[in-house]
């Protein structure tokens, strides 16, 4: 089987999500990468070195600079004439583009797969991760998005793929990029961080959320996350949100502070290797999934912890 993989990049670097996607795709067949953008030579060279990638297709044009779905999807759909499956990371970029490709191919997408069970069979979470479905696709071609925390990252070295330029088509012209307000942070990205400290509504205010969590995160070299309740209350921006409606994470250590453990939050972090919970309510559901629990007042515990680390 020949598999086309959408590579997510920022024009300079290949995102980690792409590496896990390559691993998932390699379980289906031979991996051919698609790098769409404007100046993508450096990215294409980096992708060519990823272990398991056979060919890198590059599509370059000014219209592709921001990887808008309207411009990328027709290129992917055209390349799919000679591929059997299209695989993209289930990131906001992949989720924006893949269904558009699927519809152009008249294929029903298999979203957010957790495992590859066979050439046409996959597992995926439904109902906010409260159930896992095994689904078999009857479509001749497959379109799949990958939950990147469910797959190991492919090695960034070891491959020697050829790089081929493909037709970038014409600018569909129906949409244009205006701006990107990047969340400014010197901390690691949530979805690739080894350690995450995450706060809930118990922090009571944005000042206390950042005032207490940021120094702790700095000590641990951790990313900062938040529950939906904390985001809804305005303590943290939405791109901090961990959960079914936010980001799905699986770090080595997840420290949940003042988070009760609503179903939808657990769906976003329960695959973390070690979960540490700090909460004043000893009946909080978070303790049912935590490996290490500490019952107490976060306003006392967090400063003490930060001081002692």
């Amino acid at each position, binding site marked *: 089987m020949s598999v086309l993989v959408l590579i997510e990049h920022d024009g300079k670097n290949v995102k980690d999500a792409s590496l896990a996607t390559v691993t998932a795709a390699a379980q289906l067949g031979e991996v051919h990468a698609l790098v769409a953008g404007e100046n993508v030579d450096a990215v294409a060279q980096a992708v060519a070195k990823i272990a398991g990638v056979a060919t890198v297709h590059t599509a370059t044009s000014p219209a592709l600079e921001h990887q808008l*779905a*309207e411009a990328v999807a027709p290129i992917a759909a055209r390349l799919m004439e000679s591929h059997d499956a299209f695989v993209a990371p289930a990131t*906001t*970029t992949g*989720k*924006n583009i893949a*269904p*558009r490709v*699927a*519809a152009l191919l*008249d*294929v*029903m*997408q298999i*979203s*957010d797969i957790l495992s590859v069970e066979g050439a046409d*069979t996959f597992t995926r979470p*439904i*109902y906010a*991760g*409260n*159930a*896992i*479905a*095994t*689904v*078999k*696709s*009857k479509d001749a071609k497959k379109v799949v998005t990958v939950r990147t925390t469910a797959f190991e990252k492919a090695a960034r070295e070891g491959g020697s793929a050829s790089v081929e330029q493909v037709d970038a088509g014409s600018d569909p012209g*129906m*949409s244009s*990029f*205006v701006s*990107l307000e990047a969340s400014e942070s010197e901390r690691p*990205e949530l*979805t690739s961080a*080894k*350690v995450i400290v995450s706060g809930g509504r118990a922090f009571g205010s944005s000042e206390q959320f950042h005032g207490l969590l940021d120094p702790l995160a700095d*000590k*641990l*070299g951790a990313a900062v996350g938040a529950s*939906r309740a904390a985001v809804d209350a305005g303590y943290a921006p*939405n*791109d901090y949100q961990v959960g079914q409606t936010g980001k799905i994470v699986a770090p*080595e*250590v997840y420290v949940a502070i003042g988070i009760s453990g609503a179903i*939808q939050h657990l769906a976003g972090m*329960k695959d973390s290797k070690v*979960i*540490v919970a700090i909460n004043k309510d*000893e009946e909080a559901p978070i303790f049912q*999934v*935590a*490996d*290490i*629990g*500490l019952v107490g007042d976060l306003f006392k515990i967090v400063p003490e*912890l930060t001081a*002692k*680390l």
Partner: protein
Amino acid sequence: MKLLVAVKRVIDYNVKPRVRMDGSGVDLANVKMSMNPFDEIAVEEAIRLKEKGVATEIVTVSIGPAKAQETLRTALAMGADRAILVQTDEEVEPLAVAKILARIAEEEQPQLVILGKQAIDDDNNATGQMLAALLGWPQGTFASKVEVSDSATVTREVDGGLETVKLQLPAVVTTDLRLNEPRYASLPNIMKAKSKPLATKSPGDYGVDVARRLETLKVVEPAKRQAGIKIGTVDELVGRLKALGVAK
């Protein structure tokens, strides 16, 4: 300007789904059902565009069983003007939903179709993008801000922050959580909604085959995590974190 809003009847977001013992799916018998939360946000956004004088009419559509009428009545009570129920007892996949919506969009000629970014039952996050592809329209997915004039300017929740795109009209927008806070329908409006027009159609009326492309082989509960240990002091926690290699 006419707006089309798609809504889905799903398990209420406060209900914990129970997986059937025989692995055939999730038990929905006698379970509270509601409008998909992201679709409520879509209805609210449409109403706000009408209140601003940008939109003149809001048509709401649902594809589902007879009881999806209740979901449409909720949208009408919130402020939609008329409703279309495409009635079927089949579980309709996003691709077929998108095909039906595309046919309705061709008939109704809206300038904007607004949908939730995903339904909280099958969690596919696909229908809006598929609809945009089928119509050849631009898409503004995961929207946290929508401004409509002779084009639509949509701010999107992306992994690295907020991306703003400008879309030609007509366009498809899918909603994210922070776009707005949906209103509750008032009792007088619930009464008024009962007399608003609701047309009932079938997938066949739109010539769309709703046969499923994905066969569900089984549905199981996820592996359960075991609760670990409780510790008593911050010093113990520091020790544990050091043992895990995350603290110096």
